[in-house]
């Protein structure tokens, strides 16, 4: 075993000497988490709106007050004519314009209905949609309180968002980030580290030495198991301390699933380095073939259920989707192995498959 440890020591030296990469590896989880936690958010806060109030009576004033005090909207300006609406959008900051028709209160009382126009800036369709929904919600709410005495029958929905009460986006991003970073470190870094050895010609030397091929591969992979694992812990801790993302399930199980996913990604990295001899190609394959699906086809950002069927099938042959499902299930729902054994088994299957394929490729190369 002395030989093997000599080899592992060398690998650690390579990693520690390249302090820039090391800095990126450990800085990345923090930066990414903060970026995703604060910047990439679906929540609306203080969106600028304009109001064209043609009545200026008691009701419209009350509604305006409700809207501006909701925290979602900030009144940027009052408009006076229709022609000013487009102008306001074009200037760029206004996301929503609310138009009250004239004689609002009177119409509401006499004809039992009055019109409000909600005009959204759909150059950003998601935001426009959300803003219109929020505004509609506030209007309905107002109507309900006003009708409270008049109408005897009413259905009052009381909503409760399970597992993520405040609908925080960061709850969704933590599992996704873990998948992305573990994939990056494990698959990308190992495939680069092995192909580097091939490019330098030192791989020949290692193979000509009494080290067994298996020892070389395991020795190469070994340090990255550590790095990836530390990174996973950093993400979980940061998520918990800074954003309050809970770990409701068993920590041991969570770490075990992380370890499983890391093994899967490492064997994928080994497989990539068996397929190519150049660092650059290994990097391209890892980035394009691994990172993109991990971000887009895993439920990280976009829910799998809403995709077209073909893309859904694609998602199902991508390991990250299962990992993200598992992590969400453990962290947010507090589930045990009983609920996620299927996904776990699939990850084990992927790992074995990649290892077998690598061994086969490796043997062909040697002959």
């Amino acid at each position, binding site marked *: 075993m002395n030989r093997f440890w000599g*080899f592992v020591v060398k690998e650690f030296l390579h990693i520690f000497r390249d302090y820039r990469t090391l800095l990126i590896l450990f800085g990345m989880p923090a930066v990414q988490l903060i970026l995703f936690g604060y910047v990439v958010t679906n929540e609306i806060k203080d969106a600028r709106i304009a109001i064209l109030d043609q009545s200026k009576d008691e009701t419209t004033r009350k509604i305006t007050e409700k809207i501006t005090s909701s925290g979602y909207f900030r009144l940027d300006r009052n408009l006076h004519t229709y022609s000013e609406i487009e102008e306001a959008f074009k200037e760029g900051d206004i996301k929503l314009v609310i138009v009250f028709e004239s004689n609002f209160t009177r119409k509401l009382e006499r004809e039992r209905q009055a019109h409000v126009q909600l005009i959204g800036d759909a150059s950003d369709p998601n935001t426009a949609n959300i803003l219109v929904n929020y505004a509609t919600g506030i209007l309905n709410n107002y109507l309900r309180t006003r009708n409270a005495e008049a109408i005897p029958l009413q259905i009052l929905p009381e909503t409760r968002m399970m597992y993520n009460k405040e609908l925080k986006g960061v709850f969704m991003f933590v599992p996704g980030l873990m998948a992305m970073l573990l994939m990056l470190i494990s698959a990308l870094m190992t495939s680069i580290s092995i192909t580097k050895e091939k490019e330098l010609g030192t791989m020949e030397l290692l193979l000509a030495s009494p080290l067994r091929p298996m020892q070389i591969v395991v020795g190469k992979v070994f340090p990255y198991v550590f790095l990836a694992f530390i990174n996973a812990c950093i993400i979980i801790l940061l998520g918990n301390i800074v954003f309050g993302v809970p770990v409701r399930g068993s920590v041991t199980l969570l770490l075990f699933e992380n370890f499983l996913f890391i093994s899967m990604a490492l064997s994928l990295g080994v497989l990539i380095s068996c397929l190519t001899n150049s660092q650059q190609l290994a990097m391209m394959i890892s980035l394009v073939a691994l990172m993109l699906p991990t971000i887009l086809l895993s439920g990280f950002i976009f829910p799998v259920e809403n995709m077209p069927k073909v893309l859904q099938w694609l998602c199902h042959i991508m390991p990250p989707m299962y990992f993200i499902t598992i992590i969400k299930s453990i962290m947010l729902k507090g589930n045990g192995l009983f609920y996620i054994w299927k996904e776990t088994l699939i990850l084990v299957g992927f790992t074995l498959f990649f290892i077998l394929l690598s061994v086969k490729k490796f043997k062909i190369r040697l002959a």
Partner: protein
Amino acid sequence: MKKGSTDIIIVKDLVKKFGNFVANDHLSFEVKRGEIFGFLGANGAGKTTAIRILCGLSLPTSGDLSVAGYDVYSQREKIKQNIGYMSQKFSLYDDLTVFENIRFYAAIYGLSKKEIVQRADVLMKKLQLEEARNKLIRDIPLGWKQKLALSVAIIHDPKIVFLDEPTGGVDPITRRQFWEMIYEAARNGITVFVTTHYMDEAEYCDRLSIMVEGRIAALNTPLALREEYQAKNMNEVFLKLARAQTEEVA
């Protein structure tokens, strides 16, 4: 196979094919214990293919081969423990120090901690690298790197050392010093198997085999080869051989 005999490498009818391409066409030769055996040929003549097979890096298509008394098909692990190998690209790690490189190679050949420290000290003293002990390899001159690479390749006292074009891209003075090191290794009982395409270096070898298009075109001492082909130097011998071969093909 024949342990204790004077032949440390025995090759009989070595054939290596890549698809339809025949890289080694029925090679047969023996290398004696302690000699410096030169393996000459133009680029693409099949030198590297043969050396890779002898080092256990790839398997022959057919033929009987024994290296250091072990069979190339079934005892590759034993062979690897008994040989040293230095490839054309320098085999040291740029981002490790001189000492770390020595320690690494000594460790993967199974030397104990005590041996590693002892041999590293002796080696650095000999190469006058004591002050560079903790310098990164990328910061020391090419000539030193190369001498260090050879020393590292024989740090475990192998029976045979394979040098695959070890002097590529170095100045003549360093090449000279490098060959002095090769002689020293041979004096210490290590058999040296060296490939090169520098014809002047060929003169330093005890015996030479010249490969042309996958076959051994000639094999003898440098002196005997010069006489046989009535040439002033090895370069002429080589040109005559290569020309004869192309005429044959035509």
